[in-house]
């Protein structure tokens, strides 16, 4: 397949990135080359192979769902770009 600058811009939108036309044009052939390389996996017969998503296959442990107060509100808000002292503030949503 050939990835165009438009394709790159469309995927970038899904990833919440906004590329300049120049950046999309720079990335398109680079991503094309990487994806073409990834396509070599098509040579491997995996019809009878279970996917391995993690080396620790049984990590879905449960624990009691208990609230713990480990940090103060001030500590949690300290890194936020904008707060009112109680909440994270974001631009208008609707």
């Amino acid at each position, binding site marked *: 397949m050939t990835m165009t600058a438009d394709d790159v811009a469309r995927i970038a939108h899904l990833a919440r990135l906004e*590329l300049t036309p120049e950046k999309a044009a720079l990335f398109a052939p680079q991503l094309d080359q990487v994806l073409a390389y*990834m396509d070599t996996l098509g040579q491997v017969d995996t019809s009878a192979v279970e996917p391995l998503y993690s080396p620790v296959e049984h990590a879905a442990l449960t624990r009691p769902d208990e609230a713990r107060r480990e940090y103060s509100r001030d500590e949690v808000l300290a890194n936020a770009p904008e707060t009112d002292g109680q909440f994270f503030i974001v631009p*208008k949503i609707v």
Partner: protein
Amino acid sequence: MSDLTTKTLIDMRDALATGAVTAEAAVQACLGRVAATEPRIDALLSVQAEAALARARELDAAGPAPDKPLWGVPVIVKDVLCAKGAPTTCGSRILENFVPPFDATAVARLKDAGAIILAKANMDEFAMGSSTENSAYKVTKNPWDLSRVPGGSSGGSGAAVAACQCFATLGTDTGGSIRLPAAFCGCVGLKPSYGRVSRFGMVAYGSSLDQIGPLARTVADAAQVLSVIAGHDPRDSTSVDAPAPDYMAALKGLSGLKGLRIGLPREYWGEGVEPEILRACRTAIDAAVDAGATVVDVSLPHTRYAIATYYIVAMAEASSNLARFDGVRYGHRNRQAAELLDMYKRSRTEGFGDEVQRRIIIGTYVLSSGYYDAYYKKAAQVRRLIRQDFLDAYATCDVICGPTCPVPAFPIGGVVDDPLKMYLMDIFTISLNLAGLPGMSLPVGLGADSGLPVGLQIFGQSFKEDALLAAAHGLEALTPALPEPAGLA
């Protein structure tokens, strides 16, 4: 160079424990070494000088503690690890002002063991890179040749320990990011088994691949640090609930090389590897054979698919992990955007560098509807075959050895504009992360042509870091110690 800073971690620890050296003197010596070397190598993103001195004075006032195996020892950690009150940037503009309110578990365990956090080390942005050139802040130079890269992504950690700025560092290894800088900088690097060390407080890149481990100047030093950071942590559900052995005792107790069966994968010892790398690695293997080891021919037939598999998995996981950087709770925010979606996009685009954006876009693509099975699921299937290759090989050998990287440290600017070529640097390191197994890079000499350090990689079996360290310890004893790094001489 100060006699103090060139000590091994073990010797320094012993000197501190007997009171021959104070913690404050140890910190002062390292700060002096940082001041002397940092203008040339740029290994560090921040130095916690005041906090380190204050902690040293506290420790000195209380006196040496025999139950704390790193009492008073200055260490440096990669800037991907949260350390309470210290900037943690991940080498990214998007976290330029982030100061975590907590310690990563690995950092907390170092502190509990008496270690003093001296500084945070430079890295490729979000650990994405093989040269540390992708840092948004500075390019770290290789202490052996200041015109060359230190390897990546833990390049600051490799350069700092090689330059004797401290006695050990922590790095993280998603596809070779501890072992490659160790090879390029002439130090020991250990990637533990996936699940051996808690990842809590490490900013995630590829969550099924990432693992924290030490870089140090000797195998025993690395073993001591691993003993401190290993073990189960309820805050990381993938950290395995199995006892972590005393790795220092393993070095003394296990026999090392006598009777050790060393598997040499034919895929790692031929085409595409620089002759000087092959020669240096082969010399170390020959010495091991003279000391009683045997060599076994093994095959890892899916090696040629490892890079494609790795980058699909890593980029998919990265695109998901890095979705958290949205300009709301922490990190950079664009102030001009009038509505939320626009704020997300502008904040992320301004905050992330090119390589991070490339990986997020590819990761998003391979996870997107219609492509998931062809890329992500396919890669996960090949991943199982790659792991099976190792399990099959271990039927006939105890450890597996090969070069860490086909080439020695390359020139700054030499590869960075060709992403695929940079990915190919990881050919010999990434399979191990896909399989979740432990591995080390051990310096085995200087390349005959380049004069740069050569790393021999040793792969171990799952959760058998003790046997891996014992083999490395045996090999280390047969290998001449490296001189002072040439770029700092």
